[in-house]
Each structure stands twice: as structure tokens, then as C-alpha cells.
């Protein structure tokens, strides 16, 4: 049965619609599994109609390769331990990249051996497909190795890294140009390009630490979408373009979201290989503000959250929204505490009055001495309009007027959000070095409004 190109393409439209639906549904916990199924159906449809199209004449190689791929893929997916999923995804992604590279390479044969001379546009798309495919393939392999701890998970940095990387880039651009000018099957420029693409993938991933790998995989995933898209241009296939660009765009967004959840910027990851050596020396005394959107992502990923309320919570009358945020966090699976400093507020028991009014249960209130040993294992501390009671100067600065006062050591937690309206000081008028610490983020604004914004994020 041979389908006309029109029919095939209409089937592709349906496939594309199924991919779109699938992606949409993957974003909601309730529908995610069904979404994956939809997308798989779309894929199956696309493959079937492609096989039935009249452009395919021999099936032996296809059958063999498909069988092999299916067995490998299925076994890998089945047998891998639940905990090794991420590295498995990296490997799959890498094979997708390899496939794009090979498709581009094969297209090169068709084009160059074809009737007319290949247009530059086609050549460029082919080169892109090979380049991005190559980067994805080798990069994913490295990511896999890091995640599976087959190599050091630490960032690999060496002097002159930036120079080397720049040289590689120059080499890629140069060989691409040369190849376009003189496209030939055995061209040495082609081999240079191929090799450099693979090397670039390796170089891009090695300077990134193991903890950042999920972000890298997400990014490589986005790349593999772009590679498919480029391949689509190269061989004139709409579905490759649609599906590829969908994956490319959504992958970038997802990467961005994941970056935020890890409290890093996308640029930081994108160019980490070229700036990692520099990033180590941070300016002391820099204030890092954060907006509610980003704070939400970090809170959402947190396993343990401790609130430290102070006078500012009372001024903002934020106790009700704070309790609500606490409930939402608990529903999200986090352990939530309220650490009460004895002198927080403006009268003894000020925080107790407010939190009781908001119906925070007594069980969640923790005294300073009990919370301090637990803070180093706390993911996020949210300081709500407190200042003096979390001022590390009381611990560190012998000249401070509050030196010696026991404080809540929020700076020992993994991440600290400080919610206040300005950089102003508290009752005692003492400046607070907490605001400048590496792991502190300032969420400026009225505490009630800031917390409400976080609550809104949780509910949407």
C-alpha cells in the first residue's frame, strides 16, 4: 500500500496534534500518564504512515534496525532501577542525538548524489543537524557517565578551558563554511566538523557538577529537539519540524524552570563551560533579590521549610497567609516548622498571639534552642519580617551591640529567604550581614503581599 504524500502529511497533522495534547497533559499530574500515551500513539501513527509512504522501497535494513532498537530500548527501560531513571533518560537522549546526526549525514549523501546541486539552505540545515546531533550525543554520554558515577561527578575545570572552547567553536564555524563552499562526500571538512561537534558536546558538559546534571539533560533534550527540527528542514519533513520545535521550545522553558528550582540562572548553565572558572570568585557583600515566582520554585522543591517570624509579620498582619503557605507546603510533602525567637516582635509572646490567631498548631512552634541544631539540614528558611533575631553579627562580630545574644542561626540552612520591605535595620538599629550571605535571597516587599504571591503560585 502506498500512500500519497498528501495523505501522509495529513496523518502527520494528527500526529502533531497528539504530540501537542500529550505535552499539555504531561504538565498536569492527573493527566500525565495519559498524555504520554497520546504522544506515543502519535508517534506510532507517524511511523506507520511513513513506512506506508511510497518513498520507502526496501525494508530489510529497517526491520533489522527497528528490531534491534526496540529490544535495546525496551530492555533498558524495563530493567533500569527506579533510582537510575535520570541517567537512562540521558542515554536515550543521546541516542536521539546520534540519530539526528546520522540522518543529517545520510541526507548529505542524498543531496550530493542527487540530481541538482544542493542549495546552501539545505546544506546549512544538514550541518546544523549534524552539529546539534553530535553535541547532544556526546554531551548526553558524559551526562550519563556523571550521573551513573562512571566518572567524577565534580566539575572538571582546567586552565585555558575557555581558550580551548573558543578554538573549538572557531573550528566548527570554519569547517562548516569550508564545507558549504565545497560540498563533497569525502571532504575532510566534514570529518573535522563531525569530530569537533562531538568534542564540543564533551567540553560543554564536563565543567558542570553532578548536581546540575538534570538541568543539563533537560537542555540537551531541548537540543535534540532542535536537531530533529534541523533534520526536518534538511529532508523537508513537516512533522520533524513541528515535533522538533515543540520539544526544543518546551525543553528550553523546562530547563529554565528547573534552573530556578535550583536557584541558578539559565545563562549560568548555558555558558557554564565558558565561565565556570570565573564563577568561583564571588563578590562579597552582594545582595541577591529574588521574586516570588522564583522563590516558589525553590520552596516547591524543598523537603523541609522553617518559618522565622518577626515583628514585620505582625506589622504586615501576615499571620493568616503564612499559616496558609505552611499548609500548602505540608500538602506538597515538606516538613514545616515555625521557629520562634524569644524576643521576636515587640512584646513577649507577640508571635504566639498572632500564630494562635491564625490557628497554627502549638506542635509546629519550635523554640530557638531546639531549632538551631536542625537548621543545617533544613532546605529553606523563610524569615518573615524578622531582623535582629536572625542577625549573625550577634554570633560573629564582637563589636556589635548585640554580640552574645543567642539568635536563630538561619544562615546555617541551605537557602534563606528574607522577606522585608527594604535593607533597613530592625529595632536595635544594627546592620545585618545575613542579607549578604551566599545562600540568602531577599524577597522585598510587604510580607503579606510577598507571602500571598507565593500562595498564589502554589495554587495555580
Amino acid at each position, binding site marked *: 500500500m502506498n500512500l500519497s504524500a498528501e495523505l501522509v502529511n495529513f496523518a502527520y497533522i494528527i500526529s502533531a496534534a497528539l504530540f501537542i495534547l500529550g505535552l499539555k497533559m504531561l504538565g498536569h499530574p492527573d493527566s500525565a500518564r495519559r498524555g504520554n500515551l497520546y504522544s506515543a500513539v502519535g508517534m506510532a501513527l507517524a511511523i506507520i504512515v511513513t513506512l506506508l509512504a511510497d518513498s520507502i522501497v526496501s525494508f530489510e535494513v529497517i526491520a533489522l534496525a527497528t528490531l534491534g532498537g526496540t529490544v535495546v530500548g525496551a530492555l533498558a527501560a524495563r530493567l533500569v532501577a527506579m533510582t537510575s531513571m535520570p541517567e537512562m533518560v540521558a542515554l536515550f537522549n543521546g541516542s536521539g542525538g546520534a540519530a539526528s546526526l546520522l540522518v543529517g549525514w545520510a541526507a548529505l549523501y542524498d543531496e550530493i548524489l542527487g540530481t541538482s546541486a544542493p542549495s546552501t539552505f539545505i546544506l546549512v540545515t544538514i550541518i546544523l543537524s549534524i552539529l546539534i546531533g553530535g553535541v547532544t550525543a556526546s554531551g548526553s554520554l558524559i551526562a550519563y557517565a556523571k550521573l551513573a558515577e562512571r566518572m567524577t561527578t565534580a566539575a572538571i575545570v582546567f586552565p585555558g578551558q575557555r581558550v580551548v572552547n573558543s578554538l573549538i567553536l572557531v573550528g566548527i564555524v570554519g569547517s562548516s563554511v569550508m564545507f558549504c563552499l565545497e560540498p563533497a562526500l569525502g571532504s575532510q571538512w566534514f570529518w573535522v566538523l563531525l569530530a569537533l561537534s562531538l568534542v564540543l558536546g564533551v567540553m560543554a558538559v564536563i565543567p558542570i557538577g553532578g548536581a546540575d546534571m538534570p538541568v543539563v539533560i533537560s537542555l540537551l533534550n531541548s537540543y535534540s529537539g532542535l536537531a530533529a527540527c534541523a533534520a526536518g528542514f534538511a529532508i523537508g519533513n513537516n512533522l520533524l519540524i513541528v515535533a522538533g520545535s515543540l520539544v526544543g521550545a518546551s525543553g528550553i522553558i523546562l530547563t529554565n524552570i528547573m534552573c530556578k528550582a535550583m536557584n541558578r540562572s539559565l545563562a549560568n548553565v548555558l555558558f557554564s563551560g565558558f565561565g565556570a572558572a570565573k564563577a568561583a570568585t564571588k563578590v562579597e557583600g552582594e545582595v541577591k533579590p529574588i521574586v516570588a515566582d522564583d522563590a516558589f520554585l525553590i520552596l516547591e522543591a524543598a523537603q523541609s521549610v522553617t518559618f522565622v517570624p518577626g515583628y514585620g509579620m505582625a506589622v504586615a498582619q501576615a499571620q493568616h497567609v503564612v499559616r496558609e503557605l505552611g499548609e500548602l507546603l505540608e500538602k506538597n510533602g515538606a516538613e514545616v516548622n515555625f521557629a520562634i525567637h524569644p524576643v521576636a516582635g515587640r512584646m*513577649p509572646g507577640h508571635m504566639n498571639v498572632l500564630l494562635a490567631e491564625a490557628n497554627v498548631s502549638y506542635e509546629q512552634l519550635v523554640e530557638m534552642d531546639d531549632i538551631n541544631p536542625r537548621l543545617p539540614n533544613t532546605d529553606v528558611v523563610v524569615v518573615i519580617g524578622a531582623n535582629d533575631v536572625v542577625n549573625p553579627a550577634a554570633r560573629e562580630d564582637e563589636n556589635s551591640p548585640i554580640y552574645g545574644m543567642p539568635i536563630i542561626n538561619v544562615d546555617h540552612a541551605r537557602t534563606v529567604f528574607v522577606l522585608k520591605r527594604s535593607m533597613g535595620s530592625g529595632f536595635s538599629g544594627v546592620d545585618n550581614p545575613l542579607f549578604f550571605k551566599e545562600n540568602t535571597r531577599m524577597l522585598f516587599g510587604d510580607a503579606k503581599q510577598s507571602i500571598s504571591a507565593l500562595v498564589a503560585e502554589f495554587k495555580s
Partner: protein
Amino acid sequence: MLIGVPKETIAGELRAPLVPASVKKLVKLGLEVAVEASMGEAAGFSDEAYVEAGARIESDRAALLGAADLVLRIRKPSDDDVALLKSGAMHASLLDPFNERGLIDTLAAKGVTAISMEMVPRSTRAQKMDVLSSQANLAGYVTVMLAARQINKIFPMMMTPAGTISPARVFIIGAGVAGLQAIATAKRLGARVDAFDTRPVVAEQVQSLGAKFLEIDLGDTGQTDQGYARELTPEQLEKQREGMKAAIAQADVVITTAQVFGRPAPRIVGADMVAGMRPGSVIVDMAVETGGNVEGSKVGEVVDVNGVKIIGLGNLPSEVAQNASEMFSANLFNLVDEFWDAEGKSFGLDLEDDILKSCVITHDGAIVNETIKNL
């Protein structure tokens, strides 16, 4: 029709059965109101206020009672007062009809139509006339205030520079109207509140106020169709005592409000349980007037048992006499209003009516209430 309101005579009774605001409404309905001089003074309502509202002040109690077609008061009348009533008059007040058979007979003999306010049914419709509810509600609030004054601790939790004060633990036995209000008030003040009641439906009500309900398996308990508790069997009562022991020992404040309608209050907290409490803690026995839930409680006294104070103050609503009078008065007004025939200018004494059937005790020289007649 003339309404007569005598001054309460029982010592310590500060409430007024009718407040000026209700007088005004009654006058508007077309009724005449006469009140005994200084009737509302103790509750904070001056004679002038009554006059302003449209009442007549009468200093001669005998004349007042003799002339009235309807007498409104809080406590049951003395025999002397009954003697002064005119035959055919109506009389609405608390009567304690289960225990005052003599008084009932006297009223019947005198030909008075006596309404016992405690017999108003506990239906949704009659709730506005229900003085037991309205007064118990205030009493529940007062119990907590009494406990808070007597105990040498504060109720709320406070984390202060001088250490953390843990919240007072309050345990409330009997979560009817008064018990629920006590729960709410203690919760408001910041205490940690547990409660217990024999009626199973109450658990949800207690939780609806944010307090904990103490689960004790007593077997079948249930409630009457009026919503009152049934009396427990002695075995059940024993089980209950056992189950509550730990809760009482832990508590800083125990408030008991357990009542069984028409019977003496159940004795729930024994001397052993009192002894188990920390010196300095406080028990408020709200049922002290009907026999007491707590062993050793005495009406009108604060008994100190090894440092545990048992407060047995009676007539708790009088402690907030102004509000209590307002509520009692509104209940009486609602009763009159419900059955007042504005055109005929008369009280529609329909003894078939659900409400009147249960609260009118005597009429036309006889006891007409089934429950009381067959007591």
C-alpha cells in the same frame, strides 16, 4: 393586657427578667407593662430607663402582682407571691417543675396558667425562647473567666526572653451549650482544650471549635429526641471515670458542665481524681446547684483540696448580669410575641401548639403538662 414584673428576691440574683429594650417592643405590640421599683438596678438598668421605654413603675409589690395578667420573672415564685396572683393570670418563669411539685400544685390550685421556661422544647423553632440555652451560653463563658482568675498561671502559650510558658491545659466535661462556649472561650484565650461528652454527636461539634474530643468507648449512650443526654448506667459511669483520669491529671483547669435533664447531675470527678491533680490547678463545677459533678464541691464556695481549688459558684449568668438579663428578656419577649394575637389583643393560649404543649404546666386549675402530671 398588663404585664407585671416583680423584682427578684433570691439573694445573689442580679438579673432582671425584662430589660427596657424589650419593654419598648412589648408596648409597641399593645401591651401594658408595670415593673416593680428598682427591678433592674442590679443588672445596670435604672427605673428611668424603664419609664422611658414605656413601663409604669410600681413600688407596691402586692398591687403589682395582684393586677398583672401576665407575670414575667426569672426564678420560681415564693408561695407568698403565688398567693398574691389573681386567678386566671399567666405566669412565666423558671419553675424547676420536676422538683417543685408543691409549688406546681399551689399554682394549679390558684388557677394560674404557669409556664415553665425550662420546659420550652429544644426545637429549632423554639430556640429563641429557650432561656436554658441563652443562660447556659453565658455561664459557659463565665466558667472560664472564673478559672482564669483562680489559677496561678496564664492560659496562652508565650515564648519569651525569660523562657517559654506552655499553654494551660483545659479539660471540659459535658459539651452542651455551656460546655461548647467554655471550649470556645478557653481556646480563644490560647489554652489547649480537650473535651468529653457522653453524646456521640458532640464529638464533631467540639472539633468544629478547634478543640480535641477525648474518645472513651462507653458502649451505647445516645440522646433523647430533645437533644438531652440519657443517664449512664453505673458501669458506663465507671468506664468514663477511668477514661478521664489521665486527662484530668494532666489538666490545669477542669470545667464540668454535665447535666441530665430532670435528674440530679452525674457525679463524675471523684476525690481520687481531684487528688491526682497538680496543686495550683482549678476545677469549676458548673453543675454544683443540681448536685455537682465533682466530689467535694460546695455551692457558692471555693474549696481548696490539697492546693486544688474547686469552684462551686452558683448562678453563673448573674456574673454577667447585664447580658444575661438582655438574653432572658429577649427570650420572654419572643415567647409573648410568638403567641400574641395583635388583632384580638390577647395571648393565643393554644395548648395544642408544640411549644405551649410542653411548657405550660398548669392551666384552669389543673396540671396540664403530661410529663409533669405523670411524674
